[in-house]
């Protein structure tokens, strides 16, 4: 065999295929333009929106829809001073001034709920808070109530004067001596007012009516002012900012780990980030394309036969297996015995018995007998058929 045929390739001219700076600019200028537009739009929207970061729900300084700055402004306009307190210590200090109302909208950050509960004076609790049993003993949340406009249906002056209000969230059971307002069907009350040691404790199911979004609806503003404006001053308990200046754990002498670090470390971390970036660029650049190719299918021809074997096995198809083994054995025996392909049963059995010297009944039951009773019988049959074939072959 000679390998002199014309090759499929001739020497052809090479040509660069990587994009030039110009073509890359042409291809990507639209994307770059769109990216710049997007960044500009984001910058403008943040600048206009004030950039207050994420909204803080029910915070007297928050101007977002979920905040409560509007309510705080209304209170201040009515001569009530509103003080934010982001810790129990601060709230207690403020309470020393006397005649203060404590507004609690969240207790999940409070490390000492029992201490909070001991602060004297009026108290408004918003929502089914953690350790509500300490803040308003006897009031228990009984069900979830949808937030919607509800009627007061109670003798509490603050509620009667305000009329309908957007109430809901949690429904409470009122203890003895307490007043329940804004009922949520038969589940309980969404506002419960009860006397405590030094004043009144009011529990409302949700604070939605105090947010900037809802304050102008129904009698929401009236209800909020009636509840909070009764005192000269309001201590508004808010979550401390999460930048480590609040009640966070500090080391000895109040110095955090950041204070103890040498000044170069944060800069070195920034440099390490640059080094990681450079390493990524070094390792990430591929030398040439990933080459793909269409591979032929890999399928073994015997798979169908193996599959059929597994089917026989799964169904314990002894009868079928025995029939096939017998048919195969007879098919091979016939030419060796010199019989025609359409030889009958008696003829075959007689010829095999004569050639092998075995009992004709036994040979007959092996070649034409019934289905084996169990797997052991099938194995025995298969091996006996092998023996017959071998003996016929030898003689």
């Amino acid at each position: 065999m000679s390998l002199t045929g014309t090759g499929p390739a001739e020497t052809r001219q090479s040509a660069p295929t990587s994009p030039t700076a110009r073509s890359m600019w042409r291809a990507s200028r639209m994307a770059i333009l769109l990216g710049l537009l997007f960044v500009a739009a984001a910058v403008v929207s943040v600048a206009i929106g004030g950039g207050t970061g994420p909204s803080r729900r029910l915070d007297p300084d928050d101007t977002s829809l979920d905040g409560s700055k509007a309510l705080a402004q209304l209170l201040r306009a009515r001569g009530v001073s509103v003080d934010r307190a982001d810790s129990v210590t601060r709230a207690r200090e403020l309470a020393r001034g006397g005649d203060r109302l404590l507004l609690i909208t969240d207790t999940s950050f409070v490390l000492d709920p029992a201490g909070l509960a001991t602060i004297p004076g009026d108290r408004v609790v918003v929502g089914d808070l953690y350790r509500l049993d300490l803040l308003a003993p006897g009031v228990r949340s009984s069900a979830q109530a949808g937030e919607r406009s509800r009627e007061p249906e109670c003798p509490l002056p603050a509620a009667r004067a305000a009329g309908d209000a957007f109430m809901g969230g949690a429904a409470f059971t009122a203890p003895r001596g307490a007043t329940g307002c804004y009922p949520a069907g038969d589940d309980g009350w969404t506002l419960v007012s009860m006397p405590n040691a030094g004043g009144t404790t009011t529990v409302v199911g949700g604070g939605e009516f105090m947010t900037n979004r809802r304050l102008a609806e129904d009698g929401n503003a009236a209800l909020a002012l009636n509840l909070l404006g009764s005192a000269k001053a309001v201590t508004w308990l808010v979550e401390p900012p999460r930048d480590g200046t609040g009640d966070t754990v500090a080391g000895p002498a109040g110095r955090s780990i950041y204070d103890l670090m040498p000044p170069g470390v944060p800069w070195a971390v920034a440099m390490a980030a640059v080094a990681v970036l450079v390493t990524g660029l070094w390792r990430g650049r591929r030398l040439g394309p990933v080459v793909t190719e269409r591979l032929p299918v890999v399928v073994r021809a015997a798979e169908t036969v193996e599959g059929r074997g597994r089917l026989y096995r799964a169904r314990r198809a002894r009868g079928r297996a025995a029939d096939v083994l017998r048919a195969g054995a007879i098919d091979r025996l016939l030419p060796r015995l010199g019989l025609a392909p359409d030889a009958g049963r008696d003829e075959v059995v007689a010829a095999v018995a004569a050639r092998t010297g075995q009992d004709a009944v036994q040979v007959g039951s092996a070649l034409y007998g019934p289905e084996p009773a169990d797997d052991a019988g099938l194995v025995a049959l298969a091996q006996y058929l092998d023996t017959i074939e071998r003996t016929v072959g030898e003689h």
Partner: protein
Amino acid sequence: MALTGRAALVAALGVVVVLVAPQPGAALAGVCLVLAAAILVDLALAGAVRPLRFHRSGETLVRLGQRATVELVVENPGSRRVRGVLRDAWPPSAGAAPRVMRLDVPPGERRRLTVTLTPTRRGDRESVAVTVRSVGPLGLAARQGRHRSPWAVRVLPPFLSRKHLPARLARLRELEGRHPALVRGQGTEFDSLREYVVGDDVRSIDWRATARRHDVVVRTWRPERDRRVLIVLDTGRTSAGRVGEAPIPLAGAPADGGGPVSGRGARPVPGWPRLDWSMDAALLLSALAARAGDRVDFLAHDRAVRAWVSGASRTELLSSLVNAMAPIEAELVEADSRGMVSAILARAKRRCLVVLLTDLNAAALDEGLMPVLPQLSSRHLVLVAAVSDPRVADMAARKGTAEEVYDAAAAERTRLDRRRITARLRRHGVEVVDAPPDDIAPALADAYLALKAAGRL
């Protein structure tokens, strides 16, 4: 552009510098600026990749299992030295080595690189791209660019059965007889007249010629020559099944070698597709038939004609056959036997030996070939050659446990079907060769020689 490990190292050292510097902020800015400036300088000073020119030379044909070398000449017409690495990307089954080569071409000069291909699969393999990364003098950054430098290598079937050729040629010579036969028999044709020598059979004296020549002349005979053999390769789905053990590992087979059994559950490594074994047998048969003086045509067909070789001269027959076979892959569709038969009838006007390389799959043959076989066998002598699966024979022989007996029954069923379809084909006057993969080529050659000896061509 690309950065190097050296740039990453410099950046990592910068971390230490920033850590110990009295003014870490300024140090950070300084290190970053110096690194960026060095990278830019390096990029500016690196040899340009775009103007490089590539020329190729080397082999375009290689037999499967052998190595081919392709040379790549890199010419640098630029004014700066191009130093770095080069990758000549080929498809994985081309087995190109080395994957990445060092490159150092001074301005205005050229360098020769050699790529060795060890293909693991038949067919055409083309170089996809040449990528050059030219590193700057500082070794911090590199320019990278890609070129297209086309070159294709056709990987031919290996023709492993050529080791059987000498024995078959000896049989053929025996058959022809170096001494032309004097006995006229079936399957012989008139060869020549020669002078009578003592010992020749007097019955072979040609009296008419003797009268003309004033000398006693005898006729001599030889086996028929110039018969036609049409080898038809079925490339349908049944030819994709892998049987036996691959003499040369093919792409797609597990590469973990180590004997015929590997992986979980002792699953045998898939061997060669039936198609490749059939090609091997076809090559041996055509080599033999060409030597015997017969004309060989080749047709590959599944639902359409995949390859057709006709009228190749005896010396060029094998090279044109392997060239035609090289790109053929098994198509995963049912072969169209009706179309195949009409393609054969359209091409073979005179009576010829049609060697059909397919699988004796009862279901496929019942649906496809059997109904149209009479059309073919009435005009031509048909020989069906099929590769049997040694795994089936192995399964049929094991009867130790109940599980093995069930498998043996399934294998027996397959063999029974095969024997029955063989018997039916023979009743139609079709010759059948059914042999395991290692024996199919010599068995087919022997069948051809037997037909030739019997004068049935």
